[in-house]
């Protein structure tokens, strides 16, 4: 197994957002700023890595037919852990991500990796896979968040670089759809030429 590939494929080639188009809800929902995108991405990464590790550890102990509920419990547990810790240690971020933290649990990417990868591979590859996928997700969310923040708020990671009004709509709902739409078109194009 090529560990490097396990790790990097999630970043670019199989980027969960731009290429696999998974987890669109949080992608669109939390990316009004770059920080939110990054925060959500990291939270998801944490869940992904941990659940991948655990799933990979216990994969042989779980009968096939309860695989899915078992995985759900595992994932939901880590989500809850993230929820509680964020509430405790980064309450501000927790509030702005709101509903979407518990929704990590239904993000297809998490279950998909547990089911599709971790349940078949060893712990180390699974961890790498989770990390790669998670960081790919975080990267995508951060890019989307940055673009929206720059266009819509005239700032980058909270630092304002322009006076006056930016194009407000980009931090609102329609902007999320539109920016993501064009980003995906752009990535498709880049992938094709590359």
């Amino acid at each position: 197994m090529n560990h490097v590939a396990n790790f990097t494929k999630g970043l670019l080639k199989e980027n969960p957002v731009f290429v696999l188009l998974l987890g669109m809800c949080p992608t669109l929902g939390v990316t009004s700023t770059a920080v939110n995108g990054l925060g959500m991405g990291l939270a998801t990464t944490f869940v992904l890595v941990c659940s991948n590790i655990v799933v990979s550890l216990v994969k042989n102990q779980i009968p096939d037919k309860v695989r899915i509920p078992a995985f759900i419990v595992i994932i939901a547990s880590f989500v809850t852990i993230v929820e509680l810790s964020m509430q405790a240690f980064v309450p501000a971020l927790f509030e702005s991500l709101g509903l979407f933290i518990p929704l990590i649990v239904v993000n297809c990417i998490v279950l998909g990796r547990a089911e599709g990868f971790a349940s078949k591979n060893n712990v180390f590859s699974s961890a790498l896979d989770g990390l790669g996928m998670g960081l790919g997700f975080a990267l995508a969310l951060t890019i989307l968040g940055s673009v929206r923040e720059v266009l819509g708020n005239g700032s980058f990671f909270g630092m304002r670089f322009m006076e006056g009004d930016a194009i407000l709509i980009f931090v609102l709902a329609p902007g999320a759809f539109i920016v993501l739409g064009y980003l995906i078109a752009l990535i498709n194009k880049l992938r094709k030429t590359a």
Partner: protein
Amino acid sequence: MNLLTLSGSPHVHGDSSTKKIMYGVVIAMIPAMLVSIYFFGLDAIRVTLISVIACLIVEWAIQKYLIKGPVTITDGSAIVTGVLLAFNVPSNLPIVIIIIGAIVSIGIAKMSFGGLGKNPFNPALVGRVFLLISFPVQMTTWPKPAALFSGLTDAVTGPTPLGHLKEAVKAGRTVQDVLENGSSWVMDGVNYSYQIPGYVDQLMGNMGGSLGEVSAIALILGGIYMLYRKIITWHIPVAYIGSVVVFSGILWMINPDIYVNPGFHLVAGGLMLGAIFMATDMVSSPMSWKGQLIFGLGCGVLTVIIRIWGAYPEGVSFAILIMNAFVPLINRGLKPKRFGETAK
């Protein structure tokens, strides 16, 4: 002898063409254009020119460099979009914002879908709503009309009659009171007063508002021209305006203190512009006359709802855009009656 041409029937073609239709619309917009030049002066020309040129350039660039297909900017549709976008913004809008509007109209709302005829939404309105949401300040402060001619400075801005009325009613005053007595307030030690213009003024265009929406008469003139040239049919404008009158009339009869009379709805704001020029865009409206009636009706009802209860003082743009979204469903639901289906 030159080579014979071979093609399938029919071998003759009617005399209408996309170009003729589009330039027909441009001609129909001239009266409104003149009125806005009269009231807003050179600014009107400035905004319109920038908007049209920006639209043309964006369309040209996308066709040439992104789609890499034939360039069709001469078909006139981008010009129509440009003028209508300009008609939908205040005359003192900064150049950058106009250009953003043109990019959104043509780039996002039209060319992303493949260009002329493919867009489900009205491009000029997408541009306008985009700007309205993004730049609420700039998009909702209008220079007072006739400022250039009456010697006042441009800096003074006045609200639209609709916006003003809505605010005042929200503040607890009755409609009559506002209409008759106007309002006045003191800000930074200066006395401001605002009197909602009379119907004649509103008809002629002597009121605050976007470039093209100020004169109902000029717009109707354009509409009659388009009807005469068979560019549009009566269905959408009549259904639209009719339903606004009926719906707002019912509300008015229920409580004239809160709800202003239908006549006011008719002449104020962008209703005429929307009903005559924007809802009738054939690309984004239903194809059958029955569908067009339903479309007009939907636009009318939504316009009144948004005007009266919504956050925005003006509902025409949103109403048309929302109904645009329903057009595929309307077209799908209202198939023409096939020949032979009526036979018993």
